[in-house]
């Protein structure tokens, strides 16, 4: 039982660390090899720990094995002769075998450098995100497929092509120049945003919330804030957004592990300290004139940390959604905007606007219509919610819709 819990956890947190350091050690052209080696290490752990017991310090055990494997790999590939020996010959003094440096500092540096290496302009953005999710965050191929609403084969092909591209382009594992950082940072932020969302809106069966993924996304984002050249307003805005969302981790599920909707949550369980951190990062983000989508989303998330409804709150949220839509269309933002509109102008006005959206393949669309019709026309509300139920894919979504349906049936 203990093993079953500890190994997946270690896999999540250590896979990306060892992969980053190992890839930097072997060169980006050996990214897949590095991942294979790390996978082998975990297989070895799975095979030996049940018999010998879990080591006192499982991470140290993994690092020790990683160091050995790295050394063997160098020898096996004769990279030792080609790449390392000349350096050693030149170096005066006694020769030393190169060792894998798995110190916390080197892990942090390697991950940051890997993040930028992967977010390279030569690689299609989807592939960048896939690679980052796989190599930097240790997501399984299955999980990446879910994140992209795709399948395993497609993701594997995409990752294969992306690694080929990294090889061809001879991408160096390093932080880009000051001039290049501007372009590259946008992709890095998209990746971190997606990583956080994957954790926050997880569809996984065993845990409703994959907090680890969110925390990793926050840790990586924070590493950009700690590094002066990337400590920029959009990065701080994204960090603020993550803090505000994460403040509701504990309040989002009940004791049975079921998802609670925003209005069902006990706000005394919201993490005040995280909200305060979010406000701090939002203030940092206010420097300069540029308004990114992260600024707007962070401000919307900020208003949601105030549970009490007020005309000002919803008016502000509506305006922020208006700006967000002008910046970038997405069906979810359009639906959220319409919800805010209902709060400001009433359900009748919002119904008129909602029906223009015509997002007829989207269960959130019908859920929204069901909600807007709830008091004025329960029969219509029921029809919409039934459509939503038929379209919903995840268990959490289905449960949420069923709750709303039940409410209408009991009230009428």
């Amino acid at each position: 039982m203990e093993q079953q819990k500890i190994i997946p956890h270690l896999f999540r947190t250590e896979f990306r660390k060892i992969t980053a350091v190992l890839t930097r050690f072997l060169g980006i052209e050996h990214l897949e090899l590095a991942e294979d080696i790390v996978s082998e290490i975990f297989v070895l752990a799975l095979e030996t720990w049940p018999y010998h017991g879990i080591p006192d310090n499982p991470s140290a055990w993994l690092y020790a094995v990683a160091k050995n494997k790295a050394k063997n790999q160098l020898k096996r590939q004769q990279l030792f002769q080609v790449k390392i020996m000349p350096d050693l010959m030149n170096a005066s003094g006694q020769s030393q075998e190169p060792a894998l440096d798995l110190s916390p500092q080197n892990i942090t540096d390697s991950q940051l450098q890997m993040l930028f290496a992967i977010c390279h302009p030569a690689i299609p953005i989807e592939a960048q995100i896939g690679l980052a999710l796989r190599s930097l965050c240790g997501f399984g191929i299955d999980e990446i497929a879910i994140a992209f609403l795709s399948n395993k084969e497609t993701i594997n092909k995409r990752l294969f092509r992306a690694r080929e591209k990294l090889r061809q382009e001879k991408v160096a594992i390093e932080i880009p120049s000051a001039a290049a950082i501007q372009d590259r940072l946008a992709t890095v932020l998209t990746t971190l945003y997606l990583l956080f969302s994957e954790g926050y809106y997880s569809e996984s069966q065993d845990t409703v919330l994959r907090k680890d993924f969110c925390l990793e996304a926050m840790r990586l984002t924070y590493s950009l804030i700690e590094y002066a050249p990337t400590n920029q307003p959009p990065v701080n805005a994204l960090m603020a957004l993550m803090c505000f969302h994460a403040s509701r981790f504990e309040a989002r599920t009940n004791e049975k592990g079921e998802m609670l909707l925003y209005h069902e949550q006990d706000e005394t369980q919201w993490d005040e300290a995280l909200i305060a951190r979010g406000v701090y990062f939002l203030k940092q983000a206010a420097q300069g004139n540029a308004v990114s989508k992260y600024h707007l989303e962070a401000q919307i998330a900020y208003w949601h940390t105030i549970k009490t409804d007020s005309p000002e709150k919803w008016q502000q949220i509506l305006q922020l959604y208006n700006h967000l839509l002008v910046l970038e269309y997405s069906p979810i933002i359009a639906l959220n905007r319409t919800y805010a509109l209902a709060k400001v102008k009433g359900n009748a006005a919002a119904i008129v606007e909602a029906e223009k959206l015509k997002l007829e393949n989207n269960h959130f669309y019908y859920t929204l219509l069901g909600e807007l019709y709830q008091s004025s026309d329960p029969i219509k509300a029921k029809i919409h919610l039934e459509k939503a139920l038929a379209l919903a894919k995840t268990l959490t979504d289905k449960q949420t819709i069923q709750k709303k349906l039940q409410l209408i049936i009991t009230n009428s």
Partner: protein
Amino acid sequence: MQEFMLIFRHEDGGKLASPEQMQVWMQMTMDWIGGIAAQNKLVSTGSGLAFDDSRVVGHNNVVTNGPFGDIKETIGGFIIVRAESTDEAAEFAKGSPVLLGDGNTVEVRRLAKPLDFV
């Protein structure tokens, strides 16, 4: 899908609004534009045009100061939308807060494609 420019024409460009009025006005405009953007039909928010300190350059390069003297209506700004038909674009125009001003109009013009001129 075609693109249309919605051009705001103000009967009196000389009227000045208070900061409070400006804020209400901005909010109404953003609500209207947000509604179009929510349908993924917004191409460009275009730009508002300032009414003060303008020039009109005429034939033979005769330059006069705004506000526009003998021109009855002044253009206050524009946005570009995507629509199936001119009628749909005109429906969008109906929601514009510009029309709350007596005598103001919104002109709906299809953006010409290069082929239109061949």
